[in-house]
């Protein structure tokens, strides 16, 4: 990607990673980008860097606009390595004596990552930096999504450099929301579900503060994916909605299966749920990625989990999804557990305990079927699904 002027004197100088497919366990089927932004004013500022291995491209993009040595100030909004991995090289290129602006936690975390004697300037929340015709304001957003996370806001251009917030893993030459089209929302949703779902209480507070402060935002520049310039309010509204986790009229039936018995149960349960007018979707774990499952969980009102019993335990792939889900702390869900078993049948009880630990509102009973569900067994699955469907309808009344 080349440097692109996104507002007068403000350039997108980040890079595209076309080939990444596994982003620390999150499947990024469309690759991703690591965004960085250059502001040329009386002082020249670089906001964030890129993942290690892409330094040359970043420097080449900067050089299309200005000699990297002329950068006066480096700003790090977020310590995570996909944005800071190139810092050693970039600091070397621009000059090790240049100030490195970051949050207090940013200074701590960058020091621990890189052990370099850089000239840190830890900003106070709300601190403003005058760079000539513009001013930059730093807004701490701790735990959105790391302790060091912050936003940088340019009042004159009404641009919010939002770090990972409002990002999407999407590789493409389409740089803006109005160019890429509405399909980008599904990537933004997946990003939210897998990176931010556990911080929704915090997000609602930040959105409230932004509303109260009357911050005017014409453009949001996240560190991954496209820039929101046509409708920044659309992604803000989506974050508000996703953070509330009210749940839609939807249930997801997540399961794995050994000899198709738990699969038959899952599909029958889903048909029962659908018969109550609730959108239902059976999702076979080994045919889906855990990060796609979480995207479905985000707006589902009910999460139904099924597993065969293997060696007195939950099937390992189901445990994987439960562990991942537990960490992302979905809220306000109805939960249910089911599974086929041979002789001991512990899995269903173990799933119930996991879902209870996630504070799901559990259905009164679970459903187990021994070996292969026969007609009566399948009927009990449909009935179980209907009960779940009715519970969803009742919860959303």
């Amino acid at each position, binding site marked *: 990607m080349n440097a692109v002027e996104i507002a007068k004197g403000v350039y997108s100088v980040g890079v595209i990673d076309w080939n990444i497919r596994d982003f620390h366990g999150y499947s990024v089927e469309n690759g991703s980008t690591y965004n960085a932004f250059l502001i040329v004013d009386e002082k020249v500022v670089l906001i964030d860097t890129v993942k290690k291995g892409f330094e040359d491209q970043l420097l080449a993009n900067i050089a299309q606009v200005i000699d990297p040595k002329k950068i006066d100030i480096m700003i790090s909004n977020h310590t995570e390595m996909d944005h800071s991995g190139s810092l050693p090289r970039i600091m070397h290129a621009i000059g090790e004596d240049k100030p490195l602006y970051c949050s207090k*936690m940013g200074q701590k975390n960058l020091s621990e990552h890189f052990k370099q004697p850089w000239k840190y300037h830890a900003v106070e929340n709300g601190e403003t930096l005058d760079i000539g015709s513009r001013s930059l304001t730093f807004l*701490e957003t*701790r*735990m959105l999504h790391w*302790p060091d996370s912050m936003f940088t806001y340019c009042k004159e251009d009404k641009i919010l450099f939002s770090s990972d917030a409002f990002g999407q893993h999407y590789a493409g030459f389409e740089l803006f929301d109005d160019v890429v089209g509405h399909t980008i929302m599904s990537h933004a949703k997946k990003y939210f579900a897998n990176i931010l779902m556990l*911080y929704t*209480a*915090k997000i609602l507070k930040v959105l409230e503060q932004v509303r109260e402060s009357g911050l005017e935002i014409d453009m949001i520049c996240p560190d991954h994916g496209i820039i929101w310039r046509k409708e920044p309010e659309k992604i803000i509204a989506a974050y508000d909605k996703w953070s509330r986790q009210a749940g839609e009229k939807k249930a997801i039936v997540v399961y794995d299966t050994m000899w198709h018995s738990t699969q038959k149960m899952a599909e029958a349960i889903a048909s029962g749920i659908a018969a109550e007018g609730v959108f239902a979707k059976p999702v076979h774990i080994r045919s889906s990625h855990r990060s796609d499952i979480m995207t479905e969980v985000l707006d589902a009102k009910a999460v139904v989990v099924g597993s065969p019993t293997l060696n007195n335990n939950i099937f390992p792939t189901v445990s994987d999804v439960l562990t991942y889900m537990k960490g992302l702390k979905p809220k306000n869900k109805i939960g249910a557990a089911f599974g086929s078993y041979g002789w001991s049948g512990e899995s269903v009880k173990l799933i119930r305990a996991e879902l209870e630990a996630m504070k799901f509102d559990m259905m009164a009973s679970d459903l187990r079927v021994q070996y292969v569900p026969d007609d009566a067994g399948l009927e009990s699955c449909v009935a179980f699904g209907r009960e779940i469907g009715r519970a969803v309808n009742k919860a959303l009344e």
Partner: protein
Amino acid sequence: MDKYVCDICGYVYDPEAGDPDNGVSPGTAFADLPADWVCPVCGASKDDFSKED
């Protein structure tokens, strides 16, 4: 004295250790922390903490 865990980031406030970096001496109960004390890791306020089980 009870320990309290931050619901946002998982930091545990241990009254025996206090939070000396932010002026809270060891031996300070969670209830006695100043109202404007925040989680030293993520900045969450006191009402974002729950008693550790």
